[in-house]
C-alpha cells in the first residue's frame, strides 16, 4: 500500500503531501490546486469517519472518461490493517472490495482500459479446474461473480462477470504487491514480531538511495523464505525481514535515477506509472502510482 509519507512516514498530513508531490512531479504526477484542496479536506473527513490512524494518497488510475483517485486508510497495524478507497471527484470516497486471489488471476487477463465508470462490466471466460478437482474455498461474494460450465469434452469453463470497481480493487492490490516499497531501515521488526516504523531512521545516503537493493517490498515476504538458509543468516532480522527489490523477477523491473542529485526516483518498468521516491538523508520517502492500471507484459522485449 501507500504513498506520500514523511517524518512520521506514511501519514499524509499538511506537510507531507506537498513535499511528496514535489518529489514525484518530475515523473508526471501532479495535482491541481483544486484536487489538493479537495483531497486535504475529504481525506480528513474519511479518516475521522473511519477512525483511521492515518490516511494517505495512493495515486490514480486513468480511465477513458474519468480517473479513479485511490486513497488508503491505515489502522493501528500499518502492515496489515490497510483499507483502500476510490473517488472520482476527490471528495466522496467509496471502499474497494477486498482482493481475492481467484479474481486477481482473472483480472490479470483483462487488458482493456478502465473507463472511469465503476459499474462497467467485464466478462472473462477462462478454463477452470477439472470437475474431479477439489474446489478452493471461495467466499460467497466472489463465488457469486463466477459461473462454471462443463463442456462436452468434460473440460470446465469459468465465466466471471466483474464490475469495474472489483477490477480496480484487484489492480490496486496487484500494484501494491509490486510497487509499495520502503527504504532499508525505515521499518523494523520488533521482538514480538510486529512491523513498526523506525524512529531513528534518518534516510539513506545519496549513493545508497539510488541503488535498488536498498529498497524492500512492504508486503508479506515471498522470496525471502525460499532463500537458502546460508544466505538468510547473513541478514539482519530486525531490518532485512522483507523482500529486497534486488530479488525481483524479472530482474530488471526498475529504473533508478538520482534526479538532480537530490531525490532518488525508482520507476517501475512492470507497472509503468509506479514511482518510488526517497529524499536522501531525510525521513521522506513514499510511492505513488499514476497510470492505466495495466501491467507491462512485454518487459523481456523492451530492455
Amino acid at each position, binding site marked *: 500500500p501507500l504513498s506520500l509519507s514523511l517524518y512520521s512516514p506514511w501519514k499524509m498530513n499538511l506537510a507531507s503531501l506537498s513535499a511528496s*508531490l*514535489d518529489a514525484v*512531479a*518530475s*515523473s*508526471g504526477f*501532479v*495535482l*491541481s*490546486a*483544486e*484536487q489538493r484542496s479537495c483531497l486535504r479536506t475529504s481525506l480528513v473527513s474519511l479518516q475521522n469517519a473511519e477512525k483511521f490512524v492515518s490516511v494517505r494518497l495512493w495515486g*490514480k488510475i*486513468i480511465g*477513458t*472518461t*474519468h*480517473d479513479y483517485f485511490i486513497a488508503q486508510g491505515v489502522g493501528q497495524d500499518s502492515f496489515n490493517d490497510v483499507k483502500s478507497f476510490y473517488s472520482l*471527484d476527490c471528495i466522496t470516497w467509496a471502499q474497494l472490495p477486498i482482493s481475492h486471489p481467484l479474481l486477481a488471476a482473472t483480472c490479470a487477463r483483462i*487488458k*482493456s*482500459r478502465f*473507463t472511469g465508470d465503476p459499474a462497467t462490466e467485464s466478462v472473462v471466460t477462462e478454463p477452470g479446474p477439472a470437475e474431479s478437482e477439489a474446489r478452493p474455498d471461495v467466499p460467497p461474494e466472489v463465488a457469486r461473480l463466477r459461473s462454471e460450465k462443463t463442456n462436452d469434452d468434460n473440460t470446465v469453463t469459468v465465466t466471471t462477470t466483474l464490475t469495474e470497481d472489483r477490477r480496480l480493487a484487484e489492480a490496486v492490490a496487484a500494484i501494491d504487491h509490486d510497487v509499495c516499497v520502503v527504504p532499508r531501515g525505515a521499518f523494523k521488526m520488533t521482538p514480538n514480531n510486529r512491523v513498526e516504523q523506525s524512529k531513528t531512521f534518518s534516510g539513506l*545516503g*545519496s*549513493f*545508497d538511495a*539510488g541503488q535498488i537493493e536498498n529498497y524492500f517490498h512492504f508486503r508479506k515476504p515471498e522470496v525471502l523464505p525460499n532463500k537458502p538458509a546460508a544466505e538468510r543468516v547473513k541478514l539482519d532480522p530486525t531490518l532485512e525481514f522483507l523482500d529486497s527489490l534486488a530479488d525481483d523477477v524479472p530482474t530488471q523491473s526498475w*529504473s533508478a*535515477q*538520482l534526479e*538532480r*542529485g*537530490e531525490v532518488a526516483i525508482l*520507476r517501475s*518498468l512492470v507497472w*509503468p506509472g509506479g514511482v518510488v521516491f526517497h529524499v*536522501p538523508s531525510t525521513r521522506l520517502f513514499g510511492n505513488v502510482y*499514476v*497510470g*492505466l492500471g495495466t501491467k507491462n*507484459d*512485454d518487459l523481456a*522485449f*523492451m*530492455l
Partner: protein
Amino acid sequence: NDFIQDKEAVAEKAKLAQTQSQLFKKQQLDDDDEAEQPVPDVMTLARHFEDAGVGVGQEETFRISLALRQLAEAKPLKSVRFWGKLFGLRKNYIVAEAEYREGEEPQPEDEEEPAPSETPEQTEEESDDPTANVPKSQYKPLPPLPVEEYGSGVNKKVYFVCHEPGEEWVGLPNAKPAAIVVARQIKKFLTGDLSAPVVSFPPFPGNEADYVRAQIARITATTTISPAGLYTFDEEDDEEEERDTFIEDEEYEGKSKAELLDPSLAGWAHHSSYILPQGRCKWLNPAPPKEDEDEDDEDDEDEDEEEEVEPETGPPLLSPLQNDEPVDNQPAWSARLTSETSPNYAAVVVSSNLWPGAHAIALQEGKQFANIYIGWGHKAQAQPYSPPLPPAPQQEFPNSEEITEAADPTREEEIAYEEAMKEAEEDAEQEEEDDDDDDDE
C-alpha cells in the same frame, strides 16, 4: 561506507546547480508588448495542464521555460515550444520542438552526416575478416527511401533534447522512413543515451537518437491537434494532395467549451501530417519504373512487388479527430474540463488513448491551444507485444515449368505407370501378333 560516493552525488547536485544558474538571467522587457516571442508563455500553459493533472511540476517547468529561451537565443530559431518529456532507464529526455527562421535553415548535407551507422552491412563487407573471400550475396537491397528534408513531412520541424534544463541541447537527426517503419514493429525502453545502440528485431537502422526521433515523429503525427477551424489551407495553394502547411483562419470565431468537449471530437483537428506506412508523409514510389531497361524483363521480375504500386494514402492534414480509429473498442480520444467545481473558468483538455501521456488543451474558446507528451514513448496496446516473425525466404527464381523439379511419383502412380507400360507392351505384342496374323492371313 559510501561516503565518497555520497560526496560525488553532492558534487553532481552542485554542478547541476551551477549549470542551471546560468539560465536565471534577467531579460529586458520588450519595448513593444506585442512583439512576437519565440518561446510561448510556457508557465501559463503549464498551469492549465497542471489543472488537468498533467505536467512535471512548476519548478521544473520554469527551468524548462528558461532553457527553451536559451535554445532560441543560441540557434537561429523562429519558434520553440516544450514538446514534452520522455522517460528513460538511466536519464530522461526533455524535448523541444523548433522551427528555424526563414533562410537560416541548416544545409541538408549537415543533416545527413550524423547517421553513419545507417548501413552497417557495408562496413562488414569491406573488413578484412576471413569470411571476406566467401561468395558474396548477389542481393541488392532497394535503396533506402530518401529522408524528407527539414521543412517538410515528418521533418517539418526540428527537435532538440537535453536531460536537465540548463544542460546543452542536442539536435536530433531528421526522422528517417526506415527508422519509422522499424520503430513501429518494436517496443523498447529508452536508455537516456542518444548514442546507445537499439538492439531489436527487426534490426533498427540507427542508434537511440534515431529511435527517439522516430517515436517523436510518430507521437507528433498522431497526437498533435488543434481546435477545428482555427487553421485553414491557403486558398492560393490548390494542390490538394500534398498540402502540409496551413495558415490561421482569420474568420475563426471561437468554439464554445461544449463544442470542444463533444465526445465526437468534431471540435478538434489533426495538426500534423499523417505518416504513411512507408515512413514518410509524402508518398514516394520506392522503385520508380526504370525506363531504359527492357520492359518485358521487368514485367516478369517485379510482378509481385513493385509493378503498378498503389500509392499509400492517409487522412489529410487538419482532418477532424472524429474519424480516428477506436483503440481497443474505446474512443481514440477523451475530452474533459480541467475543473468540475469551476467549469466556467476551466480549460478543455483532450487526452489520447492511443499514446497515453499525450494531451492537448484549449483556452479562450480555442483561440489558444497547446500540446504536450509526458511518458515512456510507448503506444497503448491491449494485446501483449510479440515480435514480428522473420519474413518468408525469398524466391530465388520465378516459378516456371522448365526449372521446376518434377514431383517423385507415388507408389500408386508407379503402379499405374507400370500397368500402363505393361498394357502398352501387351498391346504392342498383340499388334505384332496381329501383324503376324495379318501376314498369315
